């Protein structure tokens, strides 16, 4: 059997999928075919019935998706956190901030180059909400704020090329190969919490979707096997995801 699941770039770039997919194959004899796309595109693929389930991290968009009848339900699976990446020298002293919003204010005050995803993804939306908390409006920023309109990896590449600050999910950052002179400068504010959720596509809307397989997969994703695999997934000794599904 096979099932198609649309996931966001940050999930795939973390490397976790390379652990989970073979395990699912082994346990369920189910081949999970991943479509790695932007958040919006993942939701779109689900709405069109071109995939059987989606795994994203953008709560408001997910709720709209459900409200439109595109999915049957939303199941939270795990979370990780967002972190601020920046030049090793941390020219804006963002690392000394007491909160995520303050870190952003420091960057804005220093007018240090900052790369924004600019693509309406979960990550981008979170960043925008943080600027809001800091009482700043990216629309008014000048040249130092670069809305690049790209996936997590491409945006990190751009940040590396410019030696700029950027907000990334921890997993993508740890698994990223082209770190250049960048380093993690700020993390830890609870507001940076990043919840991933699983949404099976609604079979009432698209009769052909493999809803039973999607449920089967969901069952596995919230199982103890998955829990162990997710919690044990480490890069350089660091845990990336925390399993938090209601079992």
């Amino acid at each position, binding site marked *: 059997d096979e099932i198609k699941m649309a996931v966001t770039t940050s999930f795939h770039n973390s490397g976790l999928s390379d652990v989970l997919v073979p395990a699912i194959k082994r346990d369920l004899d189910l081949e999970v075919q991943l479509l790695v796309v932007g958040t919006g595109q993942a939701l779109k693929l689900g709405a069109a019935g071109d995939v059987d389930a989606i795994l994203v991290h953008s709560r408001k968009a997910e709720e709209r998706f459900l409200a439109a009848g595109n999915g049957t339900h939303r199941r939270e699976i795990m979370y990780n956190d967002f972190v601020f990446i920046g030049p090793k020298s941390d020219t804006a002293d963002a690392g000394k901030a007491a909160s995520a919003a303050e870190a952003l204010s420091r960057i804005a005050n220093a007018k240090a180059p900052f790369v924004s995803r600019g693509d309406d993804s979960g990550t981008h939306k979170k960043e925008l909400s943080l600027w809001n908390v800091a009482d700043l409006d990216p629309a008014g920023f000048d040249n130092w704020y670069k809305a690049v309109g790209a996936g997590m990896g491409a945006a990190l*590449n751009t940040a590396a090329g410019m030696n700029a600050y950027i907000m990334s999910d921890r997993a993508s950052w740890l698994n*990223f*190969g082209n770190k250049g002179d960048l380093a993690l400068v700020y993390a830890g504010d609870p507001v940076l919490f990043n919840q991933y959720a699983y949404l099976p596509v609604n079979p009432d809307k698209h009769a052909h979707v493999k809803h039973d397989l999607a449920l089967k997969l969901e069952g596995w994703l919230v199982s103890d096997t998955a829990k162990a695999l997710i919690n044990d997934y480490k890069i350089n000794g660091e845990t990336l995801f925390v399993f938090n599904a209601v079992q």
Partner: protein
Amino acid sequence: MSDLWGGLSQAFYMLVSLDADLVEITLRSLQVTLTALVIASLIALPLGALLAVRRFRIRRLTIAVLNALMGLPPVVVGLIVYIMLSRSGPFGVFGLLFTPTAMIIAQVIIIVPLIASIAHQALRELWSDYHDLLISMNTTHAQRMKTLLWDGRRALLTAALAGFGRAIGEVGAIMVVGGNIDHHTRVLTTAIALETGKGDFALALALGFVLIAMAIAVNLVIHWLTQTEKEGRW
């Protein structure tokens, strides 16, 4: 810079060790592109010949449009093919989305204008040579086209090779319609894009070098087989 050397050595290493993943996606690249090339050539070469021999009214417009379509942005082609093949699209029932077939369709659309344009240019010269004779012999349009295609086959090879190059290196469209699914629709270019996103430039470059090496090898083999550059021109 170190990524560059890293890429080169990694490419070399993967090639000599016949890395299983590499072999798989390389073969899939070849299979998709060659299939697309055959189909596209079957459409584009006769089209190029038709444009050469026929003076229909909107010929100039057709040629200009064909030239313009050479620049069809792959992503747009990908999107349109996606919309057509999507479950909610007109051809959704066939379930072709995210299959190699979908990738072939997208590539065909992308390279037909390119092959037809180059073929038309090559055959136009030949036609201006043959024009009087073939008209005088009262040939049908089909006979003229057949004659041009046969006698111009060397030049048409360049057109087909250009199409091959374009298709094998293309990523925007096949990413959208193929989905870059591991072991299923992943090809060299989508793998390169993936590795680039992960920041693994050395691996991305290695795959790129393999791709380029393959393209050069295909070209050399074909040039050598057909002796395109030998003096007698056919």
